[in-house]
């Protein structure tokens, strides 16, 4: 209860403390203080010998800065424009040939990224489950055996997992014809890969290239 009472007690308007005065004295020394703040500061100074001493000291150091400002650096009289103009002209003459060279690597990288994205998305599965051979009925195929022929799917058809990968706990290879292999890997769609939980996303699906006739 005493704590609550303390919190509810109205705050008193306190006089400026020395820390605040120190900040404002520094601004006042360079004429950067508002009139209202200046009046409050003067009231504080009237009753604070320490701050009066600081004020005197600040005035001395500001005088030194003021004198240094008046001496100023000796700036050269000649203009830099003639030299700058020739530099600008030189740059502009180089620009037409330099620009494509500057952009070429960026464009090449962008094209490569697009190609990777396109390829990684894969193509729709080319194979459909053969009739009468539902996924539920399919058992683990032996490695190296050629699965029953799968009819080729149109890209617009729904995606189904080839029988050879169902229950593929031991990375049984997928049989893929040469014609659809890309860089030695099967083009795998995202959906297809999601059915292979044993494979990490970056791992290639093991494939055995076979001839079209095998199907």
């Amino acid at each position, binding site marked *: 209860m005493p704590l609550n009472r303390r919190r509810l007690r109205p705050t008193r308007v306190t006089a400026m403390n020395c820390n605040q005065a120190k900040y404002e004295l520094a601004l006042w020394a360079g004429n950067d203080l508002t009139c209202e703040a200046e009046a409050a500061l003067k009231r504080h100074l009237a009753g604070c010998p320490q701050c009066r001493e600081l004020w005197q000291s600040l005035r001395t150091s500001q005088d030194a800065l003021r004198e240094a400002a008046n001496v100023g*650096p000796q700036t050269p009289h000649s203009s830099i424009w003639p030299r700058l103009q020739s*530099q600008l002209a030189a740059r502009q003459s180089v620009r037409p040939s330099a620009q494509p060279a500057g952009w070429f690597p960026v464009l090449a990288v962008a094209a490569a990224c697009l190609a990777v994205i396109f390829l990684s998305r894969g193509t729709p599965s080319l194979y459909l489950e053969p009739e009468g051979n539902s996924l539920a009925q399919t058992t683990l195929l032996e490695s190296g055996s050629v699965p029953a022929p799968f009819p080729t799917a149109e890209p617009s058809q729904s995606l189904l997992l080839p029988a050879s990968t169902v229950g593929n706990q031991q990375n049984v290879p997928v049989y893929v014809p040469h014609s659809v292999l890309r860089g030695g890997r099967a083009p795998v769609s995202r959906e297809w890969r999601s059915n292979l939980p044993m494979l990490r996303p970056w791992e290639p699906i093991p494939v055995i290239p076979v001839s079209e006739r095998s199907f």
Partner: protein
Amino acid sequence: MIRMAERELHPFESLPLGGSVSDARLVEEARRGDQEAFGDLVMRYERRLISVILRFVRDVELARDLAQETFLRAYERLDQFDPSRRFGPWLFRIGVNLTLDYLRKRKRRGWAALFSDSNLDRSPDPAVPDPRNALDLEQEVRLVLEEIPEKYRTVLILRDLENFSTSEIAAIVNRKEATIRWRLAEARNRFQKLWLKRQGLLDASESEALETDESDRDEL
């Protein structure tokens, strides 16, 4: 106020008088490939820009090179410039950043110690009766400024040596004006302590307190 009257107007304030072309117009023409328009901008700002850079690097030829590089970059980035804003702060932001980058690289490579400009003596201007005292004081100020962390030193130089307003500095260093005011106050307080120390006016206990305070706090 007297101080303001003593200084010459800086380019942000020296808006073109009747008949001359505004910055915005010149920028627009330069964007369309008119190099002469860009040349007008260069001639309008070069002295001021070199003067600001010289506050940081001291060597006149180096300052000219940095100014030239600043204009080159500005020209190449004209299409990124927002025409609703002022050209001056945008240009000075490029220049100040370029200069600070240059100094950071030089410091990293350790060249600062080998090729320090601190030993460069500027030849006195014969037009000034006896500039030695003023030059000495300016060099003293420089040495003290070098002891102040970069973010405070930059604001202090732009405000107290180059007379930019706090709002202009905010635009140049790309920070809020409140941040600039805080940094300015901190910078002046640090300068005051270091100045006292350099003048031998600080007693031993205050010197120790100052040294412990030197660690750069990263407020705001």
